[in-house]
């Protein structure tokens, strides 16, 4: 004790005491305080995902959506949007948003699927919402194409066109093309209703019908779909057809007419 009492007036003594005190308080806090993971109802791997997701969220999303996903003037609250919404928005590159405009654009995906899953797990922990579908839910192989076509024409084509080529909405907004969109993302869009799209929860459109619609789109709107009539001209209806008829149809015929008129018999000099 002599050694200790001999050094108690050392200039650094106060600092050492402070460090001990902090360590003791921190240790007690971590032992006694209610930890969030204690509330999570399942395995530690998911709690780890949530923790990691929270970190990603703080870095990439919190500036608009608030530190706890509660929303701000720049972005909506994410409480209750569910993991499906995160998987759609971040998975299609719409989030994080690049610039303000009439509508958030689709762009290159910024996160890996692992990061997206972690973000989704964190957002899902904020409140119950639509859950990311499992592959068997959106597998087009299981869908009824004809039924999907009817459902698509009843519910979707008024914005997305007959075969999902997209269309205009008000004020510069638009319904995007569905060609090349991952079936999972189509499913999630129907579940969550991103941006201007209405949502079609399982109560109004059962999971089976969503798979039917995906099967229809796979049949008519992919690189592999058959186009028995030749070039589709964008499948946009009579406007491109009219332009094509004028430019290539009448254009070619007028060129032919000019060619014929230029090649004429020469009057013989008598």
């Amino acid at each position, binding site marked *: 004790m002599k050694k200790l009492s001999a050094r108690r007036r050392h200039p650094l003594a106060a600092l050492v005491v402070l460090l001990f005190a902090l360590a003791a308080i921190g240790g007690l806090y971590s032992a006694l305080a209610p930890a969030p993971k204690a509330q999570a109802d399942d395995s530690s791997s998911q709690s780890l995902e949530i923790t990691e997701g929270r970190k990603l969220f703080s870095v990439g999303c919190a500036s608009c959506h608030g530190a706890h996903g509660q929303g701000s003037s720049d972005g909506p609250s994410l409480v209750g949007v569910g993991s499906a919404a995160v998987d759609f928005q971040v998975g299609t590159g719409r989030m994080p948003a690049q610039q303000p405009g*009439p509508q958030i654009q689709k762009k290159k995906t910024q996160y890996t699927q692992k990061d997206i899953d972690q973000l989704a797990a964190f957002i899902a922990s904020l409140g119950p919402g639509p859950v990311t579908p499992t592959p068997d839910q959106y597998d087009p192989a299981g869908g009824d*194409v*004809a*039924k*999907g*076509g*009817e459902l698509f*024409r*009843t519910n979707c*084509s*008024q*914005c*997305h*066109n*007959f*075969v999902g*080529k*997209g*269309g*205009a*909405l*008000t*004020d*510069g907004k*638009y*319904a995007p093309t569905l060609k090349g969109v991952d079936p999972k993302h189509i499913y999630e869009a129907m579940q969550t209703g991103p941006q201007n799209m209405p949502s079609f929860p399982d109560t109004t459109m059962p999971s089976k019908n969503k798979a039917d619609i995906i099967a229809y789109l796979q*049949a*008519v709107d992919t690189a592999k779909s058959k*186009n*028995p*009539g*030749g*070039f*589709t*001209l964008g*499948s*946009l*209806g*009579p*406007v*491109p*057809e*009219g*332009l*094509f*008829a*004028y430019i*290539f*149809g*009448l254009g*070619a*015929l*007028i060129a*032919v*007419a*000019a060619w*014929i*008129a230029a090649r*004429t*018999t020469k009057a013989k000099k008598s």
Partner: protein
Amino acid sequence: MTTSTETPSSTRRGPKHPGQRVAEWTDARLGLYKLGKSNLRKIFPDHWSFMLGEICLYSFTILILTGVYLTLFFHPSMSETVYNGPYAPLQGVRMSEAYASTMHISFEVRGGLLIRQIHHWSALIFIAGMIVHMMRVFFTGAFRKPRELNWLFGWTLLFIGMFEGFTGYSLPDDLLSGTGVRFTEGAVLSTPIVGTYLSMFLFGGEFPGHNFVPIFYSAHILLLPGIMAALLVAHLILVFYHKHTQFAGAGKTEKNVVGMPFFPIYTAKAGGFFFLVFGVIAAIAAIATINPIWTMGPYRPDQVSTGAQPDWYMGFSEGLIRVMPGWEISAWGHTLVLGVFIPLIVFPTVLIAIAVWPFLESWVTGDRGEHHLLDRPRNRPVRTGFGVAWLMLYFTLLIGGGNDLWATHFHLSIETITWSVRIGFFVVPVLSYFVTKRICLGLQRRDRDKVLHGRESGIIKRLPHGEFIEVHEPLDQTELHILTAHPQPQPLDIGPEVDENGVERKVSAVTKVRARLSRNFYGEHSQIPKPTVEEYDEITSGHGHH
């Protein structure tokens, strides 16, 4: 070598050639020799723009040929059936017989899809050809006396052609055309007082009813093509009777036609052109899809798709309805839907505006003479300005009709386009009129300059005293003739305001308007005086070269 001198010589040589015997047999009954003698050597002038009407004639012929094939397999019935054909995405879907038979034509009938596509592409090209042909006639003044009636025949062909196309587009009873029929029903319903009666008559009950496909079918394959064929024949007979117009040029006058004889030159050219037109349209039909009804699905009143437009020739009516504000008046338990009714009235008005021009022009200018030499559009700035203004109005409305596609493809707001078209509807024609008129006058000045000073040769010459000049090359006689052949009429003169006794003359308001319009046509602000012989001689004599 005429037919009359040939007959005795061939009897002397022995038995007649079988071909000659057939010809003589027919001649004795139909009088073909006389007809042939007067018409086979008919002269037609050569210019590519005179073949635009031929494009229409041939595409109409193709429409009839392919149309006959399609009627063999089409069932004009709205009774319901379930699809069991080869197109998987529609199997088990309920649809009308009309739609099912069009699916059958597209997927099961040999060559059916190609014939359908040839038919539809020809229809678009037929009406596009008619518009371009009509504007050629308009800008060159070919509608003037004696051809006003033929102008009206042609215009009527265009007008009926639009409805012929519309009824054909509606027959397959697919979701796209059904939306168009619904649009039409709405337009019919908006007619005051008789709207509901008309709609009930047309559809045989509440929309869509069970009648419209059979009714449209009769109109499409019988009534309208019948009228069109009759008008077409009349149109061609009048072309023969009036003789073809020609552009001014050396040796071409109001009393002759310079060109090639109908037989054998034009029979060969026109026959060849028919096959070329058929070939081009068949190639297009083989390359590009048109109206892929299998992707649209059968019509159901509870379904609709975005991008629902009519074929292009009805696009301007679509534009009218899309940009019209949704006004309506409700009074005494009735609703007057101005948002639909006004476009319904403007639609024929736009078309009639161009139809009546020949009569308006001859009334204003007091021109009663026959014209067989065509105008160069620049020499008639008011007419050309009106034609361009009309076309620009038409195009503005077409843009309005496709506002959603312009919005998505050019990243614009649909409201911006709609408002631009609303303002453009009034502003664009006026602006185009004045811009065109200025351009015409500029071109007239350029012509005058070319006649007097020749063409810029691009050769820079240095004169002995050091000055640099560009050498101008004089035009040859043919070019000079073309640039100076047009007459420059004087505006209507209504005489002095007071008579010789100083008393104010009575001039009706109509005459005053006419005189003002006439000054607008031919006054000093509408034509640049063409060079006179004296001016030309003075400037080309070599004195005071500049």
